[in-house]
């Protein structure tokens, strides 16, 4: 096999990489795997908290590994440009998906995303008549206009997140569910 890693047969121009190259990539991938694990354990041993940097480091290493697999094992480096475009476009659209969803969730002011709403459906032990009547009221407003998350006042966020807390003020919030702002 030549040093240039290319070999053209008479009919087509399929690229054939030397076996040594594949083994080399494999060694690289194994080393990176070790680094990933070390990057996890070393801060633990040293008792330092890297915070968000941890995730960034882990993802950076994973992306390096993924690039090696895509470029060499899958041969994208030697293949048609359009295949790379097709592959990358999936990542770009995934980025759009994540980006716009985060855009919403990180900029909600009038409501606390993911906060426990005061009305919590079946887990609430229903006491008295008016909370029982609230459930049909919530289902009746069909369509997109209602969401339990939006109706939850910010105050519920400060309420502790333990399981018991959920059951607390159920009935009072229920009739508000569905109306907006």
């Amino acid at each position, binding site marked *: 096999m030549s040093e240039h890693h290319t070999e053209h047969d008479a009919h087509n121009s399929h690229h054939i990489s030397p076996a040594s190259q*594949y083994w080399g990539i494999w060694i690289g991938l194994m080393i990176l*795997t070790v680094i990933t*694990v070390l990057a996890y354990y070393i801060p633990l041993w040293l008792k330092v908290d890297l915070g968000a940097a941890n995730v960034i480091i882990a993802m950076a290493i994973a992306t390096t590994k993924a690039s090696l697999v895509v470029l060499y094992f899958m041969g994208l480096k030697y293949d048609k440009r*359009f295949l790379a475009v*097709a592959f990358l*476009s*999936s990542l770009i*659209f*995934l980025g759009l998906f*994540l980006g716009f969803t985060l855009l919403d969730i990180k900029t909600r002011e009038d409501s606390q995303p993911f906060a426990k709403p005061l009305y919590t459906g079946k887990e609430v032990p229903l006491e008295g008549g008016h909370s029982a009547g609230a459930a049909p009221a919530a289902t009746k407003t069909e369509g997109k206009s209602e969401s339990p998350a939006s109706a939850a006042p910010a105050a519920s966020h400060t309420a502790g997140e333990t399981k018991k807390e959920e059951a607390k003020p159920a009935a009072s919030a229920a009739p508000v569910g569905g109306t907006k702002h």
Partner: protein
Amino acid sequence: MAQAVDELKHDHKHDEHPWFFHHHFTDVQQQFDTAKLGMWTFLATEILMFGGLFVAYALMFSMYPEAFKAGHEHLNVNLGVVNTAVLIFSSLTMALAVRSAQTSNKRGIIINLLITIACACVFLVVKYFEYSHKYHEGLLPGIFYSFPTDYVPHIEMYFALYFMMTGLHGIHVTVGIGLLTWILLNAMKGKYTSAYYTQVEMVGLYWHLVDLIWIYLFPLLYLVS
């Protein structure tokens, strides 16, 4: 005009087309390129499908980092490392299998495919032990979570994502074993040479994608900190 028609008909009667050639392509090269384009497009759809889970993971992790940290401590990092190494090695042997096909090395294809299949099976066996451990401990998603101690709020959400992501990945590994076995049988019949190895290469691309997704799943699920 009659002549042209004859020419076209005549063309079809030629028996010199190899077995793998489909009549609606103009030549073998076009057929190969088309298959490859189709495969990469398919890989793009796979990424977007897994992507939905990754997006869900990112959002839930950003909301409940404590739960995810607590959840991952129930996982065995060693088993995760073993599975990562096994899958990466299987990716290597897969690439070598394709290379053997490119160089018409029948024995090479068979040996490399066998190793790849063996690695895939090892992966699933390890996964089975991990799953059954969690099942017995009650470390299950959603309403089935019943681990008695150390409850951190929303830890069951971590296990929901853990099972969905590894489960979908595991399904892909299982499908991959089926595909690998299929091309192994074909390879034993001597179907693949440097003139035709499209199926080996396509299954290879699929298998590398399975590896690729695991490369992300491993740090996200096992090494949360």
